[in-house]
Structure formats: C-alpha cells, structure tokens
C-alpha cells in the first residue's frame, strides 16, 4: 500500500508535538526511495534528527546557507531556517544577490522583516514550493517527491494558512504572486497530500480530529492518510490467537489471577502486566474507531517498537515501512464490523 501517497510530489505530515511526525516522514522517505524515487525531506527550523532515522552525517549549521545533505540512498534532507531561507528567496528566486548584500545583511532590516506578519511562514512554505516546482536539473525537477515534516499543530497550520492570508490582505506585488503559486500547489490533489500523524490517546485524538476539520473545511486542502503511531503490542500473539473468545477469556483470567491473594507475586505481576497491555490495546482500539469515523481517511497503525540501545533508529524505520507496505489501511467501511477492527490490532 502507500502507493496513493507516494504518487504525489509533495507530502505534508501534520500533527501535535511528540506524536512521531519525523518518524513517519522518514518512513515514507524510505518507502519512496525503495521505489526508485529521489526524495527530499524538509524540516522547518528543527533540531536535526533525520540522521538518527535515516543515517548520513548532517553538515555543520551555517547561518548563511541551508545545506541539502544526503542521508540515505536517494534521500536528501534540508532543515529550512529563517535567515538562510530569506537569503535564498532573495538571491535565487528573485535573482538579486547585490540587493541581498546591500540590504538584507543589515541588522536593522532584519528586525523589520521579522515583524512583517507571516513573512517567515511564507518564506518557509515558499522554499518548499521551490523544491517541488522550480528546483530543476536539466529541466526536470531535482526531486520526485518532497516530504515536509511540518512543525506541530499551531505552527504547522500557520504554514498552510499563510498563502491564503496573503491573498486576502495583500492587493498586489511579489508577495502576492508567491502566495498564488503556493496556494495553487497546496490545493491541487494531484500534487499534494496532507497526512495526519496521531497517537492512540485521548488528547492527540481530539486534536487530530480538530486539525482534520480545519484542513478539510477551512483550508480545503487534499488529505492523504492518517498514521496512528505507537500502536501497543498485543499481550497475546494475535497471529496465533485464532479463537475470538480467547482474548475475552484471557482478560477475565488476568482479573482472577490478580484478585487471588494466595498467588505468588510473580504470577500476579505477569497477569497485571498483561492485563495492563490488553487494557491499553482496548483503549487504543476505541481511539482508532473514533478517528476512522471522524477523519474518514485511510488509517495505518504503526506498532510501538522497542527503542534500540544505541539510539540508531534506521532499523526501526525499515520495520515500520514494511509494516505499512504489507497492511491494508483501515477505512470507514471497516467500521461496520467492530469485531473486524478489533481483531486487526
């Protein structure tokens, strides 16, 4: 699966802080690269972490330049930061190096530019647009797919919204022209898709539902899929537990073991840990149902995997990619059968 996403030119991954947007971005980059695509992962003013997920050695940060660096075969990464992005906009997009040197290096001008509402967001998303549309080598785009690892909800929405804000407030000029191009790209379902990343917990679920409404109804931008990260492991191997009653029976069993004061503590601990695991899994299923019902997007569950001791997450990305490729996402049509949804955890 994933084909319906990877056929786009721009994928934007949105979600609350800490839900795993970077991991999903890295995983999708791996999946696209495995299909022979040249991929660019864009981070926005972030602390570098793609090397952890993808490998490679990020360059030293240089305030005059956002360097595109190679993290993995066919996967490049760029961290878009305010000052270098502004420079690139003026020098590369407007072709005015002299102007930049004369004017933009000035500290006072920088104060002013920082205060131009939305300019920073516009420059950020403008640079993403540049990599999708303009950044060409011998006439062809340099990258087949650009993946934007968006900042968390509020700042991410500001990024999606800014082009529209400019179109509503600015009557004419280059800022407006840039906004028109960006807005066209963001609204085009053949080019762009916005994915939501969430955790099977209450607060991220609520925020994701709100976020989805805003993107769909207010921004009217094309949505792709929902990735439900950190899906809890089933205490019993779901592959071997064919009998649908087994899980219920097991749950009752854990209760009994727990309540039986005569039991040795090791047995009780075993039962409690498994009961806790089943409990979390059932809660997670509840959020999955709610999310599928509300956001109406194909939904992938990504398993919670143990953190490797050396903090090298490349293997984990490969596993997640394989999980996505071999699973059919949940869809609204699955809701009819709660049992089915439950069974597929």
């Amino acid at each position: 699966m994933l084909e319906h996403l990877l056929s786009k030119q721009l994928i934007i991954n949105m979600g609350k802080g800490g839900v795993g947007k970077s991991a999903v971005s890295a995983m999708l980059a791996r999946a696209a690269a495995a299909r022979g695509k040249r991929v660019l992962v864009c981070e926005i003013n972030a602390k570098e972490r793609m090397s952890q997920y993808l490998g490679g050695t990020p360059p030293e940060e240089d305030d005059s330049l956002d360097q595109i660096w190679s993290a993995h075969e066919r996967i490049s990464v760029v961290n878009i930061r305010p000052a270098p992005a502004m420079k690139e906009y003026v020098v590369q997009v407007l072709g005015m190096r002299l102007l930049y040197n004369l004017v933009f290096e000035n500290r006072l001008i920088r104060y002013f530019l920082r205060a131009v509402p939305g300019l920073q967001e516009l420059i950020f998303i403008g640079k993403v647009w540049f990599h999708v549309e303009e950044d060409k080598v011998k006439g062809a785009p340099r990258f087949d797919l650009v993946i934007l690892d968006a900042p968390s909800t509020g700042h991410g929405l500001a990024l999606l919204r800014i082009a529209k804000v400019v179109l509503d407030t600015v009557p004419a000029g280059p800022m407006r022209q840039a906004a028109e191009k960006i807005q066209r790209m963001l609204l085009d379902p053949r080019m762009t898709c916005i994915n939501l990343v969430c955790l099977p917990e209450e607060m991220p679920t609520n925020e994701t539902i709100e976020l989805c409404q805003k993107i769909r109804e207010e921004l009217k931008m094309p949505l792709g899929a929902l990735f439900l990260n950190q899906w809890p492991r089933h205490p019993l191997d779901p592959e071997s537990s064919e009998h649908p009653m087994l899980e219920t029976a097991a749950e009752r069993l854990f209760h009994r073991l727990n309540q039986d004061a005569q039991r040795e503590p090791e047995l009780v601990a075993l039962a409690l840990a498994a009961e806790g695991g089943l409990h979390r899994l059932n809660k997670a299923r509840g959020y999955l149902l709610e999310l599928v019902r509300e956001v109406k997007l194909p939904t992938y569950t990504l398993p919670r995997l143990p953190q490797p001791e050396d903090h090298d997450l490349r293997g984990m990305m490969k596993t997640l990619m394989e999980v996505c490729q071999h699973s059919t996402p949940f869809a609204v049509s699955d809701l009819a059968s709660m049992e089915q949804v439950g069974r597929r955890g």
Partner: protein
Amino acid sequence: MIAQILRDSRVIVNVGSGGVGKTTVSAAMALGAAIAGRKSLVMTIDPARRLANALGIENSAFGSDHPFEVDAARFAEAGVACDGRFFAMMLNHKETFDRLVDRYAPSVESAESLKENPWYQQMSTALAGAQDYMAVSRLHELVETGAYDLIVLDTPPTANAIDFLEAPERLMGVLNFQPLQWFQKHVSDEGSQAGRLLRWGGASLLRALGRVTGREVIDDVSQLLQELGGLYDGFRLHAQETEKLLRAPHSQFFMVTAPQRTSILEALFFQKRLLEARMPFAGFWVNRVPGYLRHGEGWLALVNETDLPSEQAIEVALRGLPSMQGEQGALGTIARELRAYHRFVYAAAELAHREIVFLRERAIGKPFVGRLPLVNEEIHDLVGLARLSQTLLQGGVAPTTFPDSEHST
C-alpha cells in the same frame, strides 16, 4: 521538599517539549495545592483545549481568558475532598495583547488606531515567541491581582523550549524604537543622505524591500511598527517586572520530560539554559515511566528473567480458573505468550530506567528528579488528577523493579 514547594510557592512554571504530559502535570500540581487548602490556578495556553479535556469540562466553559472555578459540586461528584479552591483558565493571547496595548499606548487614539491596523490581527502569531510573552504577561497580571495563593503556568508547546526565555527580549528587539526610528526616517524621507547612498548603491531601501514583500505591505507594516514603537517604554517596564517575577524566590521552574533519549537531551539542554538565565530551577519530573503495576494501594515490581514463572507453573495456575473452561487447549499457548510479553514489558521498563539514570548523571548539580508512573488509565478527570497530585506531593514514585540507591523521595 516537593510538598513544601506546592505549599509555599506563589508561581510554578512547567516547561518541556510537546507531548510529555505537561498540561496534566500542571493541573495536578494546582489541584494538589487546592486539596491542601490553597487557592490555586492553572493557566494553560493551548488551542486544542487540552486542559478542558483533562478536567472533563466542556470546551465552552473556557476560552474567555479568565479563570474559571472548578466548583464544589464537581469535587463532591468525583469524591475528591478539597479544602481550598481550584481555578483553571485557557489563555487567549489576543485579548492579553489588546489589554497590553490599551495599558501602554501613549493615548486612547493611538491604541484604537493600532487595533484597527489590518496587520495587527496577524501580529500575535507573527512575532516569534509572542505567545510565550503573552503567557508570561497574563501570569504577571494575575499575580498582581493577589487573588491566588499559587499559579501554575503550563507553557506553550514550542519546537524549542528556550523560546520561552527569549520571548520578551525578542519582542523588545522588534519593538525597539531606535532602529525603527532609523528605518522610518528612510521610509518617509527619501531625500536623506542614507537614502541617497542606498539609491546610489543601485537600489533604494524601499524598492528593495518592496520587491520582496510588495509596497503596500511595507506601508502597512511601517505604520503598524511606528505605532507599536510607542508602546516600547511601557512594554520594556512590563518585561522587566515580569522577569523579576520569574526570578523571585517564591517562583519555581520544573522541567517535565519523558523517559526517552530525545526528550531527556532536550530537558538537559533546557536546564542549562534556565540556570544560565538565573531562573529558579526546582527539578525534573519524568512523566509516564513504564514498569509500574498498580496492586492495591502500592506497586508490584516486574519480574526478571530468573524469577519468571515457568510455562508449566503458569499453565497450572490457569487450569483451575472457572473462566477458562473450554479453553484448556489454548493454555499452553497463553502461558508461552504471557512470558514473552512480560519480557517485552520488562525490557521497555529497564530502558526507561537507564534513561532516567542518564538524566541524573548528566544534570547540572544534583537536582530533584521525580518519577511519575505510566498508568493504565489516561488522566482526564478529577479523580485521576487528584491521584496524580498525591503522587506529586510524595515526590513521585520510587523505582520498584530497578531499585536505585540514589533515589530520593
């Protein structure tokens, strides 16, 4: 020590990266103080209204930028005994900004003109760190009223936690009248020497900027900045007072983090920054630490490999249970899977424990490090919050599975 902080502090600021449960911890701290008889307030700034969820209160009750009391009936219903009073509020940074403008604008006319500028609406989100600044400003306003014994501020989720400290300085940088005046002079007086120089250099400042943003934007924003410039003196005074408030002995900062390497590195970095800024750092809370099995009133330790009951022992224990009638054939499988699952849980808890040890080793000084357990139930009601308050007051939970001599409660 922690109980004392909740009893004596007037301001507690909780910082940390997004997704670590900062809002819940903040609410539980304020609730803990209320249960102990104080009049407390938790302030949160979150468009997703997490606190409203955490308290199980309808969203409509919030959003007014004013404290809302969690009434006695709600406590009674939840069976939580509360001797004090507990307030919560959602910060609305536009309203705070409006009030600051009203307060510090040189005249009523100038305040009105500012608020009518089309770009003013965008202002609060456009200025980097403005949300953080508004949060601290509102905190300051509410402390000034003297209406609360303790205010707990849940800081906005930022990509970079240090934004919070740099916000006032950054806002001042933008509002600073001197460069603006300099700039204004060149905008309005194209005949000046600097203007001539720039033209001579090949492009006038205006044309140059106009090329990037469009001339209309320059005019609107120039006017907005000129008007905002008038607020500078007032804002500076306000920022100084606010900073004083944060450094006062009755204020405390806690860093909330998760037992994962990325969160811990960020927490360590932020501790360094807080200390450099001479802010009162009270310690770390590591939230959602796995490996705690609630058993009665206490916790049961996870079982290590050597003590893990054998498959046969588990099967024997299962066989006698009436609910397993008819499932006897699957008992062997269940026993095997239970063991495998326990190993998985044990390994995750061990890794989290090592991360906490890493935090303690790398932290500056010997700060307080409290653990809050990962529990089955997410906390979204008063009962859950009150239980967390209890744990907070006790300085967190002691490690059960991986005993640890350094742990202090």
